């Protein structure tokens, strides 16, 4: 199973605002749940998500346990030049993960 999915339009016209959709696979353990034998499951959530478009940050989110499991975000940014969109996220266990997608910008 992929760790995440990023969706952007196949081609975007330069200067237009387009939608980025990001789905991260992560349980977002709240720290409030119990396992089968009543032990509290330690909190482990993705606490930070950053999205970088050709090196510049276009989206930054600080997350708390109130974000649902398998966090989903959609946000907007402006098309400039073709290149790459990279999303990077870190969870409480210190694991940092990233996923990239290519972006084609037309004139």
């Amino acid at each position, binding site marked *: 199973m992929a760790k995440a999915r990023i969706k952007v339009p196949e081609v975007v016209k330069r200067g237009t605002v387009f939608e980025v959709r990001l789905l991260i696979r992560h349980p977002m353990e709240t720290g409030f749940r*119990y396992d089968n*034998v*009543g032990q509290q499951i330690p909190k482990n959530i993705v606490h930070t998500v950053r999205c970088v478009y050709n090196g510049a940050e276009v989206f930054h989110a600080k997350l708390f346990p109130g974000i649902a499991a398998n966090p989903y975000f959609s946000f907007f940014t402006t098309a400039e030049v073709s290149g790459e969109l990279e999303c990077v996220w870190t969870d409480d266990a210190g694991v940092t993960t990233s996923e990239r997608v290519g972006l084609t910008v037309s004139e």
Partner: protein
Amino acid sequence: MKQIVNISRRSFLLRSAVVGGGLLLEVTLPKSSVAEAEQASAQAETSPEVTAWVLIRPDDTIIIRVARVEMGQGSFTGLPMLVAEELGCDWSKVRAEYASTSEHLRRNRIFQTMLTGGSRSIRDSQEYLRTAGAAARLMLTTAAARRWGVPGTECVAENSLITHTPTQRQVSFGVVAAEAATLDIPENPPLKDPADWTLLGQPAQRFDIPDKVTGKTAFAIDTRLPGMVYAAIAQCPVFGGSLKSADAKKIADMRGVVKLVPLEDAVVVVARESWWNAQQALRALPIEWDFGEHSQVSSDSILEFLREGIQLEKAPVSRQQGDIDSAFSSAATTIEADYYAPYLEHATMEPQNCTVLYTDQRVEVWAPAQNSEATAAVTAETADVPVSRVEVHKVHLGGGFGRRGMHIEFVRQAVRVAKTMPGTPVQLIWSREEDIQHGRYRPVALVRMRAALDAAGEPTAWTVRQAEQSIFSEVRPHLIRDGVDIVGVRTFADAPYAFPNMHMEYAMRNTHVPPGPWRAVAHTHNPFFRESFIDELAHAAGQDPYQFRRTLLQTPQASKDLAILDAVAEAAGWDSPLPEGVHRGIAVQDSYGSYTAAVIEAAVNGEGELTIHRVVIGIDCGSVANPDSVRAQLEGSVVYGLTAALYGEITIKEGRVEQSNFHDYRMMRIAEMPTVEVILKPTGGFWGGAGEPGMAPLAPALCNAIFAATGKRIRSLPLKNHDVRPA
């Protein structure tokens, strides 16, 4: 072909919109709705809505809206009684009507809550419903006073007539209702002194019964729509498994088959003409399942898992008082016992079902669900439409018992299927086998209790270790506090008995079998454990079980438990002689804001055959709307509770439920029905529940009677697994 089509609620929704606002309609409404609105407007003229709860027609017919659902408990009648008492109307002209869920949502949840469960319908709404009745009465008397040009304080309402006391002029509710509807709703109208009630507390005939004896009542499963197709479902036999494949080709030529809809953990066959066609095709369908990781789980392995919980050195504490260690070290007698209760399924007589009509404009749903707002939410989420496009048709339920409150997966399934066939109504019905094998079960529980008695036989200490599945750890994690399911520990953590030293622990042990709230939730198995163990202590102390309990209930907090125990013991003639071979057992329990006790008289012959001769069960639920409904709830609890005690057992093998229908999940029938005497002792000043509290004292009272008869202590249910031949 005869079509019985449920009446659309569309016109009803508009009706309330146009009260006082007819002028706006012409400019605002979409064209297609104008004719309908005009028609609705005409109706509105004749049925003014005095408040959201009360509509009064010129012919003095009174319509009282009911927000909760009727599933046998009688609230379709009891709730209107609360309104009518304060309204001062002619009860014979009152009709009950369900409040529309969509109107409720559009009007900012004007009907408060639509949840039906927790024995809460009457007790949670009595205040706002009585207030609603009183408010409507004040509006009506005010309207009459204005008409006469007299002070409102000189007008009184009774029997749907308003009288101007000084002149004895009279006008009926129906005449002034339209004017009253234009007035503001008074905020804190005075309520009657309960001593002045004329309707509440008197037995009333239920509104829903006449149609239930003719077959006219349309349950959800009776929904008939033009062009409707039928859906049958098979769910993965092992909980947590999933569908691998189903070969649709094998059934493609079978009669009526329309399509196959695979779901993650189930497969649905849709057929024309009849559910029979769908079910026949489903039976012929080759299905491959991925049973997942739980296919080796059995009732034995679950019991082992619970034993681990009992044997743990420490577990989260649910109650602590005093010093048990020193109490035990100085004890003259120590008693220890393990008790067990199995999984149970609800088995509502109307199987799970749901009818859905999905169109581009809206989604209509007919479902036997205990909370129509939840039905609307599930429908909107599953269909991926705004809830404003969902119309939930309210229907009476063929039983609920907690099965269809939190868990309405049948709605989700039906919406999934209907969404694949826009414009075609789909009726999904679960077979009885699906119902029994895919329930939300009363959790299994194993409990170890210890108690200390001093040399005088006085109880000095009590410990409890529960190893039990939590209903709420998944669905309502906020009900788990420091590892303790605060619902699962009730009966113990809140026991009224005055042991000087107590220590109680809760070891959560969750299995893959889905748990759910089964009628009375924790107050079925826990009272069996507690009240049987108290009986053991009484016998160990050489005391009468009734007197032993009385001694432990001499605190102010326990006064209502004590009073109902005394009332039932007296009614049963606890100290009176019994026929040869007949013995008594007793138990007491408070739950859902009420206090119940029972005495059961039973005999066991040499072959170990049990006869239950008499059940005396009493309740103090504080105040009563319709005493006949409370009585019926207790009579019904006797059957539901004794069925569980005698036969109720869901067992697990290879990860799945072994029972499948009423031949192996047996129900009490009329031949086994004992004489039941219900004692109503409402002491006033509070409102308790009635649907569930009666469940609590039954199993322990019966098992205590069996002990008295045979000397055999029953520490696990059901009784069918025990040899009760006298030792």
